[in-house]
């Protein structure tokens, strides 16, 4: 990796926003395009879907945190009128494989528990019936015989678990999912030479998204074409949706995932493999479309998307001038019963591991452990918020122990505006920032000086007023850099987290933009409309927004709304403007990619690894989630005419 702190010039054309740019639509106040349907009660949520002859599924939830499943008696349930199918883990395993797991080696998770249950709430039997009411009646008639096993609920105990307390014995003799050591930069040396070292023990507790709408799917299986159609309220279907097909033991083109409005997510609907697979396997078994929607208890106990749950021991090295030089931590992370994203949240932490500060070396020892809880997934910051908490707590520790001013200390240690783009010890590049300016503006807005005076005055009266300062850096977009630093050879190409949108202009000049990631409340339609209206000079009312299923969707991870802070949408449309003529734009379909990182990495491969020389569409990476590399052939810039010339039709231009 290139040396931390070295200054590099940004490749030409990377800076998308120009200070002198005059915008007439973007940034103006526009009533949200999403709102009318929600205001009149015509949103398109998963439980609003009703297919002819549709049946309903419900899951019998494990009452045990850890137990072997000895036997399941479904006789009485099958005899209940209105029951269509009763599916155990063994039944499901005949037709489905494990759920997607992006850890390497993967940890096996089944949509219906097979052989043992590993947390309270895990599905043990899936019942399909004419109504949800009858399905729940049938659940009450199923007899499951469990052999309870020792329960592990404490992460430190999990490190030492043995024997029957081990959740995945096929994986190893203990509950350590992964144990890794990382050294970015001269960590030992910096600590040895440090003038001061401060230490803290920190705890970040588990949380969950708890959206008002739970996760769910409506699936149908067309026997004639042997194809599944699954309406599901999750995201990332145009990115890793093909892994659902793998779990269903069919080819990826035999599954069409259809997006829906989602009633909130906060991470927890990031990638809904379990509910999609459950609905689909039920549809195949029942010979009818099946709706499976988590009830509130299902969601709380088994949503597969709890947040980070960590204990840190952190050390910070400082020089004699109170400059932070190195950060070192040991973290134990309680992943719950499965490990779908591996150390993804820690990778996200590595991509922004020094926060806004010029710390030049970082060392980390990470224990990921299994316990008998719902697994972690995506929740809010996906590890960035925990990293920021850890950094700011240790910064405050230094301020307290060395008796320093919290604002001056931060100023002294910030990466300065003129130092961008700035490479942090893990190799990631911060593209821009004005941390001193942001902090000063915040302090001024809050009358920090005034409050310090009030604080001093209050102290003389025996009253204690607390004032806290925190300065956190959080990257604006989801990108493959979240995974990069976890392994010596990054398994994911730089361009493997693309965003896309498709735009069609019809003969009367109206635009239809298709988005490839869903609406979670994050205003993707309004943003897309604003960008399009700005760039093409058309009336926002002349723009219609739709969402593409996987049959029609281009590769996309999060969609435009999520990237609102990033510049992918805006910049890429500008690329198109420059690349094609107006006739081409108005008369055809085109796509655009966020190719900015592709250009960047070509300059950056200091360790001999090159991410060039790839043909589009080849797979790279390992494990259950091989990632496609969407890099364009060398020399090609993302643009409309070059990538879809075959599809573009010339027709009369519309003025």
């Amino acid at each position, binding site marked *: 990796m290139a040396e931390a702190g070295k200054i590099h010039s940004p490749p030409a054309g990377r800076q998308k926003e120009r200070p002198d740019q005059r915008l007439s639509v973007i940034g103006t106040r526009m009533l949200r395009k999403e709102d009318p349907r929600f205001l009149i009660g015509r949103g398109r949520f998963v439980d609003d879907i009703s297919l002819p002859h549709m049946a309903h599924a419900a899951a019998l939830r494990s009452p045990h945190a850890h137990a072997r499943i000895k036997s399941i008696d479904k006789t009485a349930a099958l005899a209940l009128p209105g029951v269509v199918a009763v599916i155990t883990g063994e039944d499901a395993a005949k037709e489905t494989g494990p759920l997607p797991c992006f850890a390497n080696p993967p940890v096996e998770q089944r949509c219906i528990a097979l052989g043992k249950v590993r947390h309270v709430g895990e599905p043990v039997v899936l019942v399909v019936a004419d109504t*949800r*009411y009858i399905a*729940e*009646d049938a659940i*009450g008639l199923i007899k499951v015989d469990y052999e309870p096993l020792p329960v592990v609920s404490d992460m430190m105990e999990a490190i030492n678990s043995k024997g029957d307390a081990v959740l995945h014995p096929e994986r190893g003799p203990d509950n350590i999912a992964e144990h890794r050591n990382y050294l970015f930069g001269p960590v030992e040396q910096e600590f040895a030479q440090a003038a001061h070292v401060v230490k803290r023990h920190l705890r970040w507790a588990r949380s969950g998204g708890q959206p008002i709408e739970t996760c769910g799917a409506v699936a149908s299986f067309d026997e004639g074409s042997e194809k599944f159609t699954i309406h599901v309220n999750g995201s990332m279907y145009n990115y890793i949706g093909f892994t659902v097909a793998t779990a269903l033991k069919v080819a990826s083109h035999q599954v069409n995932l259809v997006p829906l409005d989602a009633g909130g997510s906060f991470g927890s609907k990031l990638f809904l493999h379990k509910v999609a697979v459950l609905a689909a396997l039920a549809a195949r078994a029942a010979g009818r479309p099946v709706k499976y929607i988590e*009830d*509130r*208890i299902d969601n709380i106990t088994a949503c597969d998307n709890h947040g980070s749950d960590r204990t840190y021991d952190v050390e910070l090295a400082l020089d004699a001038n109170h400059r932070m030089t190195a950060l070192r931590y040991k973290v134990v992370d309680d992943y719950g019963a499965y490990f779908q994203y591996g150390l993804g949240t820690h990778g996200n932490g590595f991509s922004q591991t020094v926060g806004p500060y010029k710390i030049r070396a970082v060392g980390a020892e990470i224990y990921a452990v299994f316990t008998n809880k719902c697994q972690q997934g995506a929740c809010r910051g996906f590890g960035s918020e925990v990293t920021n908490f850890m950094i700011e707590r240790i910064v405050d520790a230094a301020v307290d122990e060395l008796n320093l001013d919290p604002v001056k200390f931060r100023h002294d240690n910030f990466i300065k505006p003129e130092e961008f783009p700035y490479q942090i010890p893990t190799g990631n590049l911060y593209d821009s920032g004005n941390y001193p300016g942001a902090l000063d503006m915040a302090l001024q807005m809050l009358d920090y000086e005034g409050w310090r005076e009030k604080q001093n005055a209050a102290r003389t009266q025996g009253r204690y007023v607390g004032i806290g300062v925190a300065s956190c850096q959080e990257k604006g977009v989801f990108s493959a850099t979240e995974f990069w630093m976890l392994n010596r050879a990054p398994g994911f190409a730089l361009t493997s987290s693309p965003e896309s949108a498709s735009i069609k202009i019809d003969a009367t000049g109206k635009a239809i933009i298709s988005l490839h990631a869903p609406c979670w409340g994050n205003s993707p339609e309004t943003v897309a409309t604003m960008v399009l209206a700005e760039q093409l000079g058309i009336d926002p009312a002349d723009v219609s927004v739709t969402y593409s299923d996987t049959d029609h969707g281009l590769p996309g991870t999060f969609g435009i709304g999520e990237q609102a802070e990033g510049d992918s949408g805006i910049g890429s449309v500008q690329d198109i403007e420059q690349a094609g003529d107006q006739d081409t734009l108005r008369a055809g379909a085109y796509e655009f990619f966020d190719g900015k990182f592709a250009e960047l990495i070509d300059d950056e491969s200091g360790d001999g690894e090159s991410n060039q020389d790839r043909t589009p569409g080849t797979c790279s990476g390992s494990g259950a989630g091989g990632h496609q590399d969407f890099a364009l052939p060398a020399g090609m810039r993302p643009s409309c005419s070059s990538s879809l010339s075959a599809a573009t039709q010339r027709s009369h231009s519309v003025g």
Partner: protein
Amino acid sequence: MKPPVFEYERPPNLRAALDALSKHGGKAKLLAGGHSLIPLLNLRLISPSRLIDVGRLSELQYIIEEFGQLRIGALTTHNTILRSPAVAAGCPIMVEAYPHVANHSIRNRGTLGGNLCHNDPAFEMPLVVTLLGASMVARSARSSRTITAERFFKAPFVTDLAADEMLIEVRVPRLPAGHGYSFLEVSQRYGDRALIAAGCLLTIRYGTCRDVRIGFRNAVHNVFRIPAAEAALEGKAASAAVIDAAAEAAAKNLTAASDLHADEAYRRDVAATLTQRMLRIACARAGQAIAE
């Protein structure tokens, strides 16, 4: 989370309801507002074979002032009671407590009778009616009886009603004009289940506190009145020292309760503080200055 199967009937009047209760006894549940019962059904925590829907028995929806007492029909909704001028005049502690009862939407449908019969240990109204010295009128197909509040609330979720009895009326004795009262509650957020609910009533006679009633709910046990706390104040002029003594007695004699939401020490500490506050408020309302 859907309810299990049950038989359903909606008797047209009280007589028919009581007949149904005597016929089906312990296997039937009365449905009034439903906002306590139906969540339990949705969770399948209970599985009654029959619901007897009494929610429309208008003969049990009334607030009548008479002979120095207030008679409240058991099926009167909470919001109706909350808004009643007669209740505000006769037992203002009830109106003070009511904003803490569930929330507005639930109070639209929930009934006083349903609330009292459920006797969830975090519910406020069982405490309020106990402090008020209310009596419950229970009727069955064969008989009628009046049950004092002390006797009515036997244990959390358990009342003195027999399987064939229905609570039909709550009788609240009117308190003297100018009496002191206060109701306070601590929960994690406004509107959440009470961790501790506290209420007091007193009358000032010749500068001393009389007929002092101090009570709590601790969300775990029945609790209610704390005689030791009342005795610290009864017959005495209100002063800081006397109120301190009452607060200390309340904290000490509160039934210990630790649960997921608060431990015993916290509850005792809060009980002491609430006693301080509510006695001061009650005295102020009764026009009694506190000697410091």
